[in-house]
């Protein structure tokens, strides 16, 4: 074989391998969950109320963890959590390291192209703008040309830039972004409403000059459980479990126990799901 042919073969092999990474093979996730008697969920520990490590007990806590546990119970298996981050979460799912993601990921067109989700929505989350009360920001349109801090990977980035003309600065995670806000790097920081509302309430002293400046949330989107593309049985099983959790009021309990300050959406879902039964 000539050198060129060798190179060509190597290139084809590399391309095939890479293609394999992007489009993981469809294995029967549900069978595997049952066989292992374990439901492996990728969770993000980016802060209360969704997911965090309790400083006293070193245990994982939060809404996502409790919801994952409740889902595992409904499936009749044990829960196993794997900590993921925005850059690696989709790879973890596609490579089969986790069976599902409860990683603060709302439905977007791009995500729906490469992953699936059980159709039942368990929450709705949008972005709230935290800033100094004396900053004069009252509306999303006031952010035009102003520096805005977000977490890297937040889905508020694109609307902030494209719709409102803000200069977005993405920090590795929420604590850095909020520290940058305090240091004056940005006029506001935009994060998931439930997270910042809880922080402002819990650390009122430290944040007394700050508040949620804009009454509306940016791009409120549906929170769902993400699974590998084409896993129909898993989707059906999780959907059934979610509907049961919502109808029985268990989801609302979990939300209240984890101090999600706004549970209006979950209450509405409970009514809707109960009515449909």
């Amino acid at each position: 074989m000539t050198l060129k042919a060798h190179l060509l073969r190597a290139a084809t092999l590399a391309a095939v391998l890479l293609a394999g990474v992007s489009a993981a093979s469809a294995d029967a996730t549900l069978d595997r969950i049952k066989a292992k008697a374990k439901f492996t969920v990728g969770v993000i520990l980016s802060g209360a109320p969704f997911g965090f490590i309790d400083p006293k007990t070193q245990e994982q806590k939060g809404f996502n963890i409790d919801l994952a546990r409740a889902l595992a119970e409904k499936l009749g298996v044990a829960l196993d959590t794997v900590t993921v981050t925005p850059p690696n979460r989709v790879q973890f799912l596609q490579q089969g390291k986790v069976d599902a993601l409860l990683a603060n990921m709302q439905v977007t067109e791009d995500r729906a192209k490469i992953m699936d989700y059980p159709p039942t929505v368990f929450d709705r989350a949008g972005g709230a703008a935290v800033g100094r009360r004396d900053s004069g920001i009252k509306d999303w349109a006031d952010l035009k040309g102003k520096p805005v801090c977000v977490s890297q990977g937040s889905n508020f980035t694109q609307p902030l830039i494209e719709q409102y003309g803000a200069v977005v600065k993405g920090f590795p995670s929420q604590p850095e972004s909020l520290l940058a806000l305090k240091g004056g790097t940005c006029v506001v920081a935009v994060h998931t409403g439930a997270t910042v509302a809880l922080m402002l309430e819990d650390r009122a002293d430290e944040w007394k000059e700050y508040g949620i400046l804009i009454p509306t949330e940016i791009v409120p989107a549906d929170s769902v459980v993400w699974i590998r593309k084409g896993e129909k049985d898993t989707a059906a099983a999780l959907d059934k479990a979610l509907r049961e959790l919502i109808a029985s009021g268990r989801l609302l309990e979990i939300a209240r126990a984890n101090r999600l300050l706004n549970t209006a959406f979950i209450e509405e879902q409970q009514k809707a799901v109960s009515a449909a039964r």
Partner: protein
Amino acid sequence: MQDAIRGFIALAGQVGLNFDFLASPFELRMWLDGMGTTLVLVALTLPLSLAGGVVLAAALTSGRPWLAGPARAYVELTRNTPTLVQLMFTVLVVNMLISQALGGAQNNPFGAYFWLVAVVSLHVAAFHAEALRGGIEAVPAATVEAARGLGFSRLEVLRVVELPLALRTALPAIVNNLVNLVKLTTIGYAVAVNEITYASLMIWTQRDNVVELMIVLLLFFSLINLAVARIGAFVERRLAVPGFGQ
């Protein structure tokens, strides 16, 4: 141009690579800006680190404790702590204190970009300084003595005798440091400086096309560093003194 981009996206799609983001003007601009920013960062930090290295090396070998002491302390501090931590500390903590001292962030002229350039160049300067110190100490004592005997001042000895010879000895180590410096600019991602890693990260966290952007990142830095290493080798050949150091 638009057609060429679409063609490339389709071609990449056929081998399973998702380059859809190129069709989005805001992401494409951010990505190209990122490449530009990385190149500007390299162009700024490279000469600054060399200048800092020479000054530090001169202080280290000056034989004057009030100069050598602080220089040594600085070299140890910066060499022994993670650069990422230094950067986050300066941007998130030191900068906030400066803002407070100046009565508000609007009076603070320094931003994340300034601190990135400062931290990266001064960090690598410490490594240059150690390489140059080795070179300066390798200059034969007899040569220095001869220069002194000819009436050269201390600074003149450093400038026309020690440094030129030290540079030749230290050059391989310095080029090594420069290759590292190019890669070190990527820590800008942690403080939202729009260099290429940050731009890629902002795109792949939206589109989950990590593999695709990683490939481009690796190629991009390989190319820059290939150029740095080639230029380094060329300078080494040009500066070689026949017979010296053999």
